């Protein structure tokens, strides 16, 4: 490989170019998404806490009415989706660090996907049901 192949300001090493996306075959996309969802959750924390505070000690009728308002529903949907994505990536890192048996690892990663997706979908369904007023 000649020096001309590598742009001068690139951080990419020749070895990195050969290995391309690495062992996970997905590059740094999970790392980046972990940061996006982390920043999103930090920003959503105050509105999220305000919603919880509004509903403390209130009954289901009041809660259902509050949760069906568009800003509240959108904030909660964003919070749930960012949480599910963030925790799915985080748990996968933990699994990949500590589970060394390949079959067990793949099973754990798969269950992690199922759990995170189920959390996201159940919550989303509940919020949309409240928002539609059915």
């Amino acid at each position, binding site marked *: 490989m000649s020096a001309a192949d590598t742009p001068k300001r690139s951080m990419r090493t020749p070895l990195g170019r050969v290995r391309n996306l690495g062992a996970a075959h997905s590059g740094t996309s999970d790392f980046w998404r972990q*940061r996006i969802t*982390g*920043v999103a*959750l*930090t920003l959503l*924390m105050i509105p999220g*806490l305000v919603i*919880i*505070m509004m509903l*403390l*000690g*209130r*009954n*289901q*009728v009041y*809660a*259902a009415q509050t*949760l069906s308002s568009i800003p509240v529903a959108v904030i*909660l949907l964003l919070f*749930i989706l960012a*949480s*599910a994505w963030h*925790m799915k990536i*985080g*748990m996968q890192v*933990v699994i990949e660090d500590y589970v060394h048996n390949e079959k067990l690892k793949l099973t754990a990663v798969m269950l992690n996907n199922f759990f995170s997706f189920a*959390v996201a979908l*159940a*919550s989303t*369904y*509940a*919020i949309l*049901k*409240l928002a539609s007023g059915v």
Partner: protein
Amino acid sequence: MTARIERPLSPHIQVYRWTLTMVLSIVHRATGIALYVGTLLLVWWLVAAASGPAAYAHVQAFAGSIIGRLIVFGYTWALMHHMLSGIRHFVWDLGYGFKPNEREALTWAALIGGIALTVLVWIVAYAMGGGR
């Protein structure tokens, strides 16, 4: 299959002197795992709200019990700590705060800030929800 090559291994955690950043790195993971499981509470709450008054009353009875309050208090701390500890990671991601005194200060800030925010959230919660 090729024969396993015996390579020298790097020393494992038990040979190192424990440092604050090391402990808090583990705490960051532990709180993350706790929050992962704790999302079940969030799901239960939202599904109950969508299901009706009886289901919602169950959630309120649980959250109001001693065990429930302890769990939600722990969940609040895990959330606040993980958030501040995560902000500390964002600072490091941007390339700041790597000097020994800086990383110690950031880590203490996450630890103390997490406890302080938890107490603050609960004071506000009792002030607002207590009278209802």
